[in-house]
């Protein structure tokens, strides 16, 4: 039972990260290793058990976690039941628990004119306790089915679909071109945001449940999609949207100007021992990160730990306010200023600037040219006379993605890619090829992990329906 006056009596309290001085010296998780249980119990009691829980609606959680129910259970000590309810809607609450920007908290009714419940942290506490207590066990299907399903891509969408399908008895094989499964989770997300063993223990569970993995296999290159169609009863493309948006300005070709994902992947591979050393390193350099999103923050945190001399973050958009604007009333997502832990660790944030070009010395970037800009009638316009330059040694482009890698589309006749780069699918996520489905970023464009999980679960349902016709 929820505590009816908890929200009046208990202040919102977030678990603090490790002290900056300490955490920038290592690659470990920025937060504490063990979460304070009592604190989470208290925080869960702030949940009002709303008649209309906006947190789990379309305004909030894409997997529609039954947030009030597990908050209530945590509040009364029913951790095990809470875990069951959490897993009922979310295959990987630890991924979202560590990484989700928590649209649920934006939509939380308390966020209307107060501070939302710390939903993400409660979620993380539930699953971490579950792992500690050995409650996360393989769930074996009650009945085997003979139909075989291939899942291409082992990011959160592919993994969620694979796990769901396997638990319903299907024979599931996951293909990924990486050495290890996880996709962007593993190669894009820095360790200080989520340690890799978090992925590994989940993969162990999936393997125990009977999901098979084929790693180091690139579909469209090593194996054709048509081959999969032949060997499997259904195929799911969960290949992500890793085609990065580029910045076609003069000087883009200079050495030292890199796509963020190339930079982040390399550091992750080094830490995992997959490669010996980095080719792009910020140590001692003046770094400019172009872009204002999560990837930019990841670059900042990584550069800081590599020992950058200085770090700038250049955002195209104006600096958001601290308060919710009238144009985005609750429960719409508010565009308020977000300060990530990487920001806290130190960087110069510059807003309303447009990078116009790079200049270099000896093919190596040395200077960045930019101009201030403003939003006028919904359009970005440069402000004349505000041009400036900045000395830089390393530029990281973190300005988004433009859809799925075209390789697989090009190699597969009949598969349709939309103009926005996503792979076209019908309402059920089935592509133009019968029995071939698409889910995750590949279908909806680059988005949140939680969306990927939601997509994977929906694809599993669609595939099950398809195989049952």
């Amino acid at each position, binding site marked *: 039972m929820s505590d009816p006056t908890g929200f009046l*009596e208990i202040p919102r*309290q977030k678990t603090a990260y490790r002290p900056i001085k300490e955490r920038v010296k290592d690659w470990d998780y920025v937060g504490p290793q063990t979460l304070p249980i009592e604190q989470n119990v208290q925080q869960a009691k702030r949940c*009002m058990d709303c008649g*209309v829980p*906006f947190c789990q609606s*379309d*305004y909030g959680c894409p997997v529609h976690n039954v947030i009030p129910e597990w908050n209530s259970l945590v509040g009364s000590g029913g951790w095990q039941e809470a875990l069951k309810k959490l897993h009922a809607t979310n295959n990987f609450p630890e991924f979202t628990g560590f990484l989700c920007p928590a649209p649920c908290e934006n939509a939380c009714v308390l966020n209307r004119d107060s501070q939302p419940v710390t939903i993400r942290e409660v979620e993380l506490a539930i699953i971490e306790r579950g792992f500690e207590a050995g409650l996360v066990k393989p769930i074996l299907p009650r009945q085997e089915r003979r139909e075989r399903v291939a899942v291409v891509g082992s990011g959160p969408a592919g993994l969620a679909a694979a796990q769901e399908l396997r638990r319903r008895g299907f024979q599931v094989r996951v293909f990924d071109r990486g050495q290890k499964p996880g996709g962007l989770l593993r190669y894009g997300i820095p360790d200080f945001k989520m340690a890799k063993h978090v992925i590994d223990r989940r993969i162990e569970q999936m393997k125990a449940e009977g999901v098979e993995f084929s790693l180091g296999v690139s579909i469209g290159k090593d194996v054709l999609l048509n081959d999969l169609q032949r060997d499997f009863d259904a195929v799911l493309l969960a290949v992500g949207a890793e085609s990065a948006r580029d910045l076609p300005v003069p000087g883009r070709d200079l050495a030292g100007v890199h796509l963020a994902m190339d930079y982040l992947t390399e550091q992750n591979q080094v830490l995992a021992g997959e490669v010996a050393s980095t080719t792009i390193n910020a140590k001692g350099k003046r770094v400019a990160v172009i872009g204002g999103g999560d990837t930019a923050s990841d670059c900042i945190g990584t550069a800081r730990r590599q020992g950058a001399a200085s770090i700038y973050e250049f955002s195209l958009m104006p600096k958001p306010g601290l308060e919710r604007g009238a144009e985005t009333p609750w429960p719409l997502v508010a565009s308020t200023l977000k300060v990530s832990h990487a920001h806290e660790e130190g960087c110069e944030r510059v807003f309303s600037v447009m990078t116009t070009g790079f200049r270099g010395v000896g093919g190596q970037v040395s200077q960045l040219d930019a101009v201030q800009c403003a939003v006028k009638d919904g359009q970005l316009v440069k402000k004349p006379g505000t041009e400036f330059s900045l000395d830089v040694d390393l530029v990281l482009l973190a300005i988004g993605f433009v859809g799925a890698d075209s390789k697989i589309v090009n190699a597969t006749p009949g598969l349709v890619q939309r103009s926005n780069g996503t792979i076209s699918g019908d309402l059920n996520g089935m592509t133009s090829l019968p029995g071939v489905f698409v889910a995750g970023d590949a279908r909806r464009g680059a988005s949140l992990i939680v969306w990927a999980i939601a997509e994977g679960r929906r694809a599993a349902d669609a595939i099950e329906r398809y195989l049952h016709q």
Partner: protein
Amino acid sequence: MTVDNQPQGLYDPRFERDGCGIGAIVNIRGERTHTVVRQALMILQNLRHRGATGYDSETGDGAGIILQKPHDFLLDVAEGLGINLPAVGDYAVGMVFLPTDESQQQAIWDVFQSQTERVGLEWLGSRVVPVDPSVLGEAAAAVQPAVFQIFIGRGSAQDELAFNRSLYLARRLSEKSIAAQLNDAAESFHVASLSVNTVVYKGMLLPEQVSSYFVDLTDPRLTSALAAVHSRFSTNTFPAWRLAHPFRWLCHNGEINTIRGNVNWFRAREVSLANELFGEFAEELRPLIRSDQSDSACLDDAVELLMLTGRSVDEALRLLVPEAWQKNSFMDQARRAHCEYNATLMEPWDGPAALCFTDGVRLGVALDRSGLRPCRYTVTTDDTVILASEAGVLPIPADRVKVWGKLRPGEMLLIDTKQQRILNDFDLKAEAAAKFDYLGWVERHITQLDPQVSVAEPELLEDLSRQQAAFAYTREELSMVLSSVARTGDELVSSMGDDTPLAVLSQRPRLLFDYFKQQFAQVTNPPIDPLREDMVMSLTMYLGAKGNLAAPPSSSALLVRIESPLLTPGELNSLERIPALKSCKLSTLFSPATGVAGMRMALSELVDDAVKQVRCGSALLVLSDRGVDEGHAAIPSVLAVAAVHHELVKLGLRTRADIIVESGEARSPHHFACLIGYGAAAVVPYLALASIQDLIQSDELDAPLSYSEAVKSFVKGGQKGLLKIMSKMGITTLQSYCGAQIFEAIGLSQQLVNEFFPATASRLAGLTFDDLARETIARHRHSFDLRRSAEDLPLPGGFIHYRFGGEQHAWSPEAIAKLQHATTSGSFAAYSDFRKLANAETAAPTALRHLLTPLKQRSKVDISEVEPASEIVKRFTTGAMSLGAISQESHEALAIAMNRIGGKSNTGEGGEDAARFQPESPAVSRNSAIKQVASGRFGVTIHYLTHADEIQIKIAQGAKPGEGGQLPGHKVDQQIAKLRHSTPGVQLISPPPHHDIYSIEDLAQLIFDLKSANPRARVSVKLVSEAGIGAVAVGVAKAGADKILVAGDNGGTGASPLSSIKHAGAPWELGLAEVHQTLIINRLRDRVVIETDGQLRTGRDVVIAAALGADEFGFSTAPLIVQGCIMMRKCHLNTCPVGIATQDPVLRQRFSGKPEHVINYFFFVAEEVREWMADLGVTSFADLVGRTDLVGQRRVEGPSKARHLDLAPLLHKPQISPKFTKPASGYVPDTYDDSLLQQCRPALEDRTPVVLSRRINNSRRATGTLLSGEVARRFGAEGLPDSSITLRFEGIAGQSFGAFLAPGITANLVGAANDYVGKGLSGGRISIVPPKQAQFDGDVPVVVGNTTLYGATSGSLYVAGAAGERFAVRNSGAFAVVEGVGDHGCEYMTGGVVVVLGGVGRNFAAGMSGGVAYVLDTDGLFHLRCNPTLVETRRLSNASDESDVALLRQMIHRHISHTQSERAQAILTNWEWHVAKFVKIAPKTDGASASKKLGRIKSIKRTVGHEVQSHV
């Protein structure tokens, strides 16, 4: 004309009801005089205000008289016709209505004569009864029958009983063969009476027309020693002569709520009864009780049949309408045993009843167990007894009065003219109980279960979550509902109404229970408070084969008494092991693989097996759905039980066995009620109990309870819920509820209903048996799909709170967000996004109106021609939400908004701060135009009433019709306590009924009172939609209301038990259309304005409601959403986080609503209305009302269940002819009161004191109220200085004497008064003293009636005599001294002081949460009469209770000075001795703890709004 009252559209004549006044006069010595007849007719005339007329003011609803067979008179008149009548005991006289056509008459005579002779009686001849048709009203004259008397000789009948049986046979056989042979003639044929001892004269007459129409009645040769009269108030306007009372044996004031069950149970018994009584004719006679007649007529039939078994008329009535004996600690063993014996033979015919009955020798009156109808009597020194609904119906000189008395609940009074004596209740029942060794019988024939077995071991069911899913359990239900009741023993309370679709509109499979809506009492009879008036309630059932009504007690089989119908598996087990009670278990499972046909086959096998088992002697059938698994699905339990029950009834086997349902499906009170309502005697909810065990094991119960404790809570909660469901229909005993089918089905096909749930209303078609089977199988398949893990089962739910993927909610997150964005930004475009959702364009339908669609017309007009929005918004009101339910900020913002646009806001039930009555500025007025008068009468003063444009009587509320309310103590802060005249921190209870409305004629009285208080306001009556509301509305219109509000079942609420929110009442579309159609058919539509409400949200909603008949429109939830409500459903917890439904000052600061937002909303709605009007080609809104031709049914695509619905009955347009309606004459102030007002001008104009003296009689009602209204208007709440106006009356005052009496007015009455004295007393003073000349025989005379000082807020009352039931009910500030009170004294009192210098009835101080009472406890048994739930009692001591003693003494002094009471004088004379005999009754001293609670809430540390980061 007669075609009007055929069923059409939503109108069905079977819903018609009536109320009335009754009266009787008897000469105890049995002296027959014409004077008795004349006086009886005078009584009838003095009851005129209790009857009614329809659209034709000259046609009454019916009146009549029953008297002794006037032998001498008949001898004379028969002789003149050449008929020689035999000796008085050797012939019977019949009063017969015939068609006017002579050939038809002849045909009827032929049949009647031959049937008479067939049964061995002698046809002596007939006589035309002379009448004067010129006195009749137009409507009555049009259908006037020919009235005849017939004479039938004893023939071969041996004795009187045999003669009576033969007369019965002659009549019934004639009726049957006339109905069979002579179709047209049968319509007008009616035998009003046929008896050796009595004769009935009655018709479609006004009381004063009876004696002028029937010439016989004024003939001085016509004599009688006794006579009973009746004046009827019906809920139709169709002249129907046969419906008038008296019937053959009785006249009835009240209503039998359980009539359907009673008639069915009679049918079940009639095979054995008929065989015993009528031998060879038995088969031909059935059914013994016709179901096509009124409840009173059915009761009359039942009385007659019981009399033919040899019982006396009073014995028959005691069996049918027993007193409440189970919890009566004053009853002796023998009498109790007699009652219990009767209870095993017959379930009570339950409902409010004052019954006047006679067999021609004995005449009596009886009240039902709750005593909800008044009955006063006078015994004179010349041995005459006058009994009537009111005192003063026959003027008796004061010096001839010997007794002034009144009947108490469950009492009977009988005058035996043969024995020449009065038998009082005690003697009568003691005599009856002594006739047989009932105590011995009970010991031999009744056993009970060993209490040790109640909770056995917890049960572990395999595949629990799949079983739960198969029975449609949801996670929400488990974690919120089931765990709540298992933890607390109370049903879950929720708020904000129901915005999920009807079961038939849901996209999901739903339980069959969900298609049934509970019915409830409104206006024509009262709901009951099962908590405060527990003494009349009973859940006891007797299991086993029941005795034959015509057989001796010794032949009965063994019965098992169970105190509750909810049994645990352990209890069932031990029941099954009782050897003398043969039981058998019948499985209700079927194989889902066999599909629809399989379920049908299994059901018919089940029924066959049940019949076979009963024939083989089984006395207990256990229908069980245990064993559900992959291969076994369960037939819906209510279908199974109804099928078995009705088949057994049909075959006359039903009383030989009882049915127990052992089901995984049943877990909520609504489920239990459905099962019992359709025939089960007990329910074993095994899966609910197993689920509780599972909740305990998984730590989800959130309380340290053992399994057996949790089960006890669950059972207790179920019992409470059942009592609530029964009592909302006014039913007190489960025995009567069993099989009574108090439900309306919505979304079931007529075929399914006719086959399994006969006589249940289901008006819009819907699911067939096959659909139901498919729904059952689909849910089962989903639950037992073994390829899927059961981890996700049961499903989330979302029936209460919104859940993604659960049941749909009209107020989805999107709908809420979009409406708020639209109204705060003022953007009509944003509103359009909202309305697309809300009009089910972009969402699935949630309401019936979404299946209707306005039909665009070719004659569409340009929108500029349509009536402006500023006019349309004037038709809008906001709902009755009290300050208390919502915060001051929210309440006032609504008032300001509505006043600004010319609409109306509503106070709700909580009074209003007088500071709001005057506008602050032209733009800001916080005065609520509608002032509500609800059952709690909180803050209803004369000052409040005079500042209303509209006074709304809330009969029922959509979210919990038939229930009272409670404002928890923590919401009662200083301000609210002040407005409600109560104590801060103390809970406030609104009773389920208005204690001054137990019937339709009572409502007429309240309307009269309110119009007297404020003649300028219109009076509206708020009803809730249910089958039969049309008839109620006709009654309300006839009672003088100006407006009828039809509320839907799904409206919001601050707090209500979940099963009421979900399962009681019907959508407004049904109720509105029924009211509109029925008023048209009765030609009363022009008299009233109709408003509707219940989740209205958009212009389209308004347009459809208008087309179905609404003139005005109420909105509640939507304006709250506009103010920021986000449907938290926490109103009942006071924690509303947006400052609306809370009184917490910190939360109230969060309120962000603005009047402008509300105004934006209403203009958006009105603009949308205009768009639709343009499309419909209607320029003026008034022209839209009732235009059902502009609306059509929308086709629903796909597999939706909604495609089964047929909404044509909603769109039916009655054609009436001749087409005439007369508009209401409007309120005419009572001339008597008006003349008082005129003569008090000096006091009103320049405060010159006025003293007036008047005679008064019982037709002068609400005396002083009109004057009080004028005082309050001129002088405000303060009124005039004390004794500015003194009114002295002599005589017997009518109802509501001194109602709402204002400060400065004193009313002194020498005589007596009727019910409702000092209702709403607002500061005036009343004193009532019996006449000095009266020669009372010792008992304290009853000088005031029931429900005195109801809702009084201040002032004083001194009564030198006793009062009736419910003295000072809901008093919140008046001081009163009285010398005796009936049952339920000081009920729900919240303030004031009451001194009782004499006896008190039972259940004193029930629900009393404030004020203080002092009772002189003369016999030392007060503690047995007091309800100690909320109060503590203490004997006063001169030494330690100084202030109490001083107050008491002061009040007695005042009493003496106002009444010169000798009794009071005697007490003071011997004061020291008397003081110690006084008991002080005051609320338990948690007054202190309540304010402490209030303090605690305020002192909660407020830390909201700060985020704190801590390091670990």
